[in-house]
């Protein structure tokens, strides 16, 4: 799970969290046992969907101001280490 969530845990963290998460999963098992096949799932409490604004350009953030807050930026873009393979 930690790898899926891009987290690296120490052995101590792993041991502590495992016990704590087991306790939570024991508690929520009460809902796992309910028979609710006839009920639809609720993703959202309000009966509204697909809210769209008119398709015209709106106000946007200033690119330089946004990039100034990035850990590393270059030539108007965010800069990151190699995504695949080694650096050239």
């Amino acid at each position: 799970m930690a790898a899926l969530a891009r987290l690296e845990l120490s052995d101590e963290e792993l041991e502590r969290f495992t016990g704590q998460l087991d306790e939570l999963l024991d508690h929520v098992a009460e809902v796992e046992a309910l028979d609710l096949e006839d009920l639809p799932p609720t993703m959202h409490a309000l009966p509204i969907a697909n809210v769209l604004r008119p398709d015209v350009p709106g106000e946007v953030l200033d690119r330089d101001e946004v990039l100034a807050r990035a850990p590393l930026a270059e030539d108007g873009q965010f800069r990151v280490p190699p995504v695949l393979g080694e650096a050239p």
Partner: protein
Amino acid sequence: MTAVEIASGVRSGRHSARSVVDEYLSAIEADEPEVHAFNLVVAEQARARADEIDAAVAAGQDPGPLAGVPVALKDNLCTRGMATTCSSRILEGWVPPYDATVVEQLHNAGAVFVGKTNMDEFAMGSSTENSAFGPTRNPCDPSRVPGGSSGGSAAAVAAGFAPVALGSDTGGSIRQPAALCGVVGVKPTYGLVSRYGLVAFASSLDQIGPFTATVADSAAVLDVISGPDGRDSTSIGEPQPPVSDTLADGVDGLRVGVLVELSGDGIAPDVAARLQAAVGALESAGARVSDASVPAAVYGLSAYYLIAPAEASSNLARYDGVRYGLRVDAPSTPDMNTATRSAGFGDEVKRRIMIGTYALSAGYYDAYYGKAQRVRTLIINDFASVWGQFDLLVSPTSPTTAFSLGERTADPMAMYMSDVCTVPVNLTGQAAMSVPYGVGDDGLPVGVQILAPALGEPIMFRAAAVLEASL
């Protein structure tokens, strides 16, 4: 002075916004080192803003309904040019390039921002002990927690650092700290207040609301921050009537239900006694009170602790070290993502991301996240059948008064139980608020929770005003 009195005095020239803000800044200077309600205090900016308000009044302009009212903002509300950290190392030092809609609305109403308040990291917690910058202490007793996650905002109002603070409530994060600190706290109907610029925790549950010392002050703030916003697709499209207008209408003839599933088992006797006293006050004012049952409410905590972490695991994927905040260098981007997140997030955030990732993962989705969403429907249906017979419901806000610092940090499940009375309302999207109603056996504040159907704020505030007046 209340916020309403401050604004009316500033607008009429009876006192200056500058003298008001100076008084609050002195209180902050004196007591903030002990309370630690703030991550950031912007004293110079606040004074300059107050002078601006005074100049506008002198020039014959009306600065707005909150003219000169000092406001503290929870540190998950984006403020242009003012650091916003969510009490997390991963956002330490980040300065947003834009204001949240509520920040714009308060500014346009004449408010004076004094600072950003401490919170549980990314609003995950019930005691403000999960802050990367140290805990906030309860101004009523510094050995106790202020509640959470908006503990800094509740403490700021309780300590007299500001007459108004904003918080966010995903599972009780406004109401529970309001109860523990002895102030008024409101979770509005989902969609009534724009979430644009609120750093997302669980998007289908999050809602912004006020903390104040009085019911009328919360009404005045809610009237400023509620309303449609094209920048939040979950914003309710139609403007709602101001709650301030009907505040004094009383509860004569209203049908009030005591929510039995949240008012019996697990509630401390002294807290239950204060609820009974509140029920008596509502009856004396003409309300018809009887027991109300929402059987599925008992499953609220379980559904909440699957749905909220699931949404959080998705929302917090954006903290990857690429666009803002912390970056821990590594030879490849995937390694950099992992190193950044492992160093930047605290324990509780990591726990919730892992629960959420698990609840959403292939093979477990139907059993956990899917099931929790069906429980959510069950709870909504149970409440819907009760609203035919009752105008309002009441329960305790928190099962106990404020607990001691450190008492529940090693036991996340015990901490989660603090939210048992407040989470059902986030799942249903309904309105609820906490009103201080005396003290428990330990002399610490007790809050009574008033629950209303969606957009039932006007009636909810009437009952709150009756309770306040009966003390």
